[in-house]
């Protein structure tokens, strides 16, 4: 068949399912809904954020939940000049791995800064939650992180 005759049609394949988030991830997501950031204490006393039921380094059960943030430090970042349709922000933004105050690991989220010259590794940022009534217990409850001292 000549190439010009190839037929094309859109096709959506979905595997719908619901998940139980359990006592640790569930606590973190509930914390987001309440406007708080939680980590969990790992085997060696380190604080893992976002929290997991096990210490990724040892496989041991993790312990108590501890509050972290709301500020943190950018450990790495990547500037998105042309956001994709499903990205959290429609305007240019930075992905960032953010180590929240009190945490020993970094969390991925976005930094809403004006341009690539306004974010750098080592910068301090702080969480900007959506309004309480709009929060549902999901990562999107955080609208973005913003440069500390900047305007949200």
């Amino acid at each position, binding site marked *: *068949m000549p*190439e010009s005759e*190839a037929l*094309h049609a859109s*096709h*959506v*394949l979905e595997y719908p399912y619901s*998940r139980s*988030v359990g006592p640790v*991830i569930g606590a973190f*997501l509930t914390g987001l809904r309440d406007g708080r950031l939680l980590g969990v204490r790992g085997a060696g006393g380190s604080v*893992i*954020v*976002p929290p*997991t039921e096990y210490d*990724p*380094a040892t496989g041991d059960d993790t312990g108590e939940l501890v509050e972290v943030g709301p500020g943190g430090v950018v*450990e*790495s*970042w*990547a*500037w*998105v*000049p042309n956001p*994709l349709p*499903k*990205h*959290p922000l429609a305007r240019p933004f930075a*992905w*960032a*791995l*953010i*180590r929240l105050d009190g945490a020993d*690991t*970094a*969390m*991925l*989220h*976005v930094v809403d800064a004006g341009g*690539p010259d306004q974010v750098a*590794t080592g910068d301090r940022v702080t969480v900007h939650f959506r309004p309480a009534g709009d929060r549902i217990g*999901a*990562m*999107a409850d955080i609208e973005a992180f913003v440069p500390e001292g900047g305007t949200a």
Partner: protein
Amino acid sequence: MSAAAAKAKRAVRRPVSIASFAQSENVRRDDQHNEVEMLMPVVAEVFANIGITKNDIDFICSGSSDYLIGGPFSFVTALDAVGVWPPMPESHTEMDGAWALYEAWVLLQEGEIDAALVYSFGRSSPGNLNEILALQLDPYYLAPLWPDPVSVAALQARALIDAGKGSEEDFAAIASRSRKDALSNPKAQVAHDIPVETLLRDEYVVSPLRRHTLPPITDGAAAMVLAAGDKAREWSDKPVWITGFDHRIETHSLGGRDLTSSPSTAKAADVAGVADGPIDVAELHAPFAHQEIILKEALGLDDGVTINPSGGALAANPIMSAGLIRIGEAAARIASGQAARAVAHATSGPCLQQNLVCVLEGE
């Protein structure tokens, strides 16, 4: 553990040879063939290379992902490329074909079979890779934000720059060299000779990654025949032997890893015995240019090692096949006499999360 004990731990119990390898043309979009039609000539070639048929093999293992094609159980349909009657023991990994190869190798180690066919196929063109690959991430903390593969790799590249382990010029040099080497690879999708200075004028896709540091989107397929015992000698005068093989994984939490190093690759390299002898050629599955720097360090490769003479994944990146192709390309260098000992590597997951290391030797 003593050195002798460490050696014994990783000793390959039963020599297995790569008896034959074949791959399709790697193209940006093949919408003229379905998966079976893509695989059929590749499977025919991998058998014809050594004059065998499917009746000469004992086991089939494939690697692919339904998410790419958008068709459930596409790996079952793909078996038609080999022919399913009479029935034969068969398995599938929802992973790159390099891991299907590992499964077949383990079964060959057990000694119950003497020959296996491994194949893999990936059609990346039908769907939106930026969205499909976000779905492989942690479903609670990462996937809901839809971080695309370029963005995630860019976080790793930035960390590498910050750590002083690489620069944008280094990334461009890797891309330039790889695609220049690909000019001699008839199966390559992207092959050209463009100097670093020109590449550095590219726009950022997601900074610090410019367009040239990204892998192409590729449709392609590959197949390999493994042989042990008498069949290894029967099918080749100079077998290429797998002398070390291991794979390891790291946490799915991106922020819980040091993205500038690859401890899983280093561990797999140790168990596979990469450092037990000199390496002539390395075929590294580094879809993003900067990842070659991390892998080179983790594998302990010095500057004398020829890296990715095929052009690597920067020249063609058929997802689910690109890792298996690295092993096939490394084996080809040994079979042709260009190398005596080679290491091949495959990766899976974001930022080199999971890594497989295979050591190959000639006679």
